[in-house]
């Protein structure tokens, strides 16, 4: 177990190192990027950039300096906004994104599992077909279109919800719904196929032969086992939700990090792009790792046979 963990953490850091390095050299290659001196920015920012990135130093020292900045969690100044650093932006935007993301995540997990379980229990009945139509639509309609659609009907046309901004619970509903659609659809399909698989297993018959009632069999024997593989999807799910938020936050004017990121792309605010990319990468890679570890703890089959598996 510890060997496995150590290996996983080592490779996690390797991946992160790769991202950080790639980000640095890609940005280095951009004409007009943060690492070049011929650019049209106000003097204050130029001074800040030069102080931060020590543009007069040779390349490898710049690189080491940049690495040091990331380790000490100093992501540098913004390229376009005089007063804020990338750290400020993350501090400002991430709590909002995390709130939205957590809400969407809960919605996706509970909604998806419910749909999937119902579909499997009512296999080939109308409930199953309905759930699967919803799921395939959720997979096919991109989040930004769903968001626009919600905004048009529920906010603009019918005025049930505020159109945009982030000033209270009612403001969070439409963005959360739009953001959770695709992962919810995915979880629903995954849960359903796992449930059907589990329900056809012999041990369900054994449970029935013991005289257990349908409810106990469904909850204790079927759902439990069907949900284990769903846990492994939670890592990619976090990634899906965080990146999906880029457009959702923009459409609903949510002042989160995702919108900040998209704005920085539009404005070619390279330092923000770089810093945010690194930040997101850390979160996502860590999320995947945590979920995998959690899975090994939950599934007894993996707990003791960790030697060969990853």
């Amino acid at each position, binding site marked *: 177990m510890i060997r496995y963990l150590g290996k996983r953490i080592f*490779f*996690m850091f*390797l*991946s992160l190192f*790769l*991202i950080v390095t*790639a*980000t640095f050299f*890609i*940005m280095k*290659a*951009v004409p007009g*990027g943060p690492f070049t001196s011929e650019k049209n920015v106000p003097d204050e920012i130029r001074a800040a950039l030069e102080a931060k990135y020590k543009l007069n130093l040779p390349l490898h020292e710049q690189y080491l300096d940049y690495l040091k900045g990331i380790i000490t969690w100093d992501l540098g100044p913004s390229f376009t906004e005089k007063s804020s650093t990338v750290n400020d932006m993350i501090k400002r935007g991430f709590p909002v994104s995390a709130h939205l993301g957590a809400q969407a995540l809960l919605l996706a997990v509970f909604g998806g599992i419910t749909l999937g379980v119902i579909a499997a229990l009512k*296999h080939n009945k109308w409930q199953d077909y309905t759930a699967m139509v919803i799921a*395939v*639509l959720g*997979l*096919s*309609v*991109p989040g*930004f*279109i769903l968001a*626009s*659609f919600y*905004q*048009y009907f529920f906010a*603009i046309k019918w005025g049930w919800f505020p159109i945009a901004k982030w000033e209270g619970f009612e403001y969070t509903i439409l963005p959360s719904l739009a953001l959770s659609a695709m992962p919810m659809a995915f979880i629903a399909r995954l849960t*359903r*196929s796992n449930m*059907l698989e589990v329900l056809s297993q012999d041990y369900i018959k054994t449970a029935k032969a013991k005289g257990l009632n349908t409810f106990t069999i469904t909850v204790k024997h079927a759902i439990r086992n069907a949900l284990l593989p769903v846990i492994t999807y939670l890592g990619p799910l976090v*990634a899906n939700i965080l*990146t999906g938020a*880029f*457009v959702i936050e*923009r*459409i609903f004017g949510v002042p989160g990090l995702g919108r900040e990121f*998209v704005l920085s*792309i*539009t404005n*070619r605010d*390279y330092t923000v*792009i770089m810093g945010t*990319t690194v930040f*997101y*990468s850390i979160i*996502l*890679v860590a999320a*995947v790792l945590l979920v995998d570890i959690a899975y090994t703890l939950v599934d007894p089959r993996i707990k003791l046979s960790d030697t060969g598996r990853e």
Partner: protein
Amino acid sequence: MQLTKEHFEPISVDLRQAEEIKRPSLSFWADVWRRLKMNKVAMASLIFILLLVACAIFIPIFSSHDYYTTNLAGKNKPPSAEHWFGTDDLGRDVFVRVWYGARISLEVGFAAALIDLIIGMIWGGIAGFYGGKVDEIMMRIADILYAIPYLLVVILLMVVMEQGVVTIIIALTITGWIGMARIVRGQILQLKAQEFVLAARSLGADNNRLIFKHLIPNALGPIIVTLSLTVPTAIFTESFLSFIGLGVSAPVASWGTMSAEGLAAMKYYPWRLMFPALFISVTMLAFNLFGDGLRDAVDPRLRK
């Protein structure tokens, strides 16, 4: 019932005949096709996709409008006989622009799928076939790359490279092939353990022949299914990138850029968002449904 002596006369039973297989045997792909044909949803999706491809090729050629001519006098017009899907804020015909968008989406989707397939087959094929240290190292590299969040890499590349369809395809495939490589490797490992490989070996087939003539055709089922689901993912990612301003640049129309522009004017000119949005969604739906149908047809055990 009245039984007579005749009833108890022996009849000859050709015992071997009972052993005969009653149904004619079909080749694997003929069987897949037979099952696919029975799936109405998948067939409808296939027909839709074929129609979409045909329209994307021919409508822009034969249309009296083009995607770039602006006409400020006739801007933001609702759908009419002249402009079936209306016009946009520069008076351009939305109908033709949607079909140009279809070209881009399909180009990106098919090209990304094809490149993923080629790289994935080579990488996964080599890793799976040689096994051992080669496999260990190659898959480790793939794992590390796979851990890097896909969309972030794509965005990063799009930021620094020149905007355009080729860039999108490069960005999409730079880590997109890994999934395919894993599938191919898994298939090869599974097949390698089977006996017909040994048979081919003992007949003197060399390694290349073994890989391309025996292993790959047998591993094709899951690969094709993965491939069919790569297309909608690529189409989605392209429209996503275009939507956040990283896709193709003006005046070229992509469904993503058209949606982004349409969104800004949604309140007054909803058709400008509606048509591209509808096209993305229905196209994705068709590819997803076709992919599902294909998966069921390739492996009926998975049918749920």
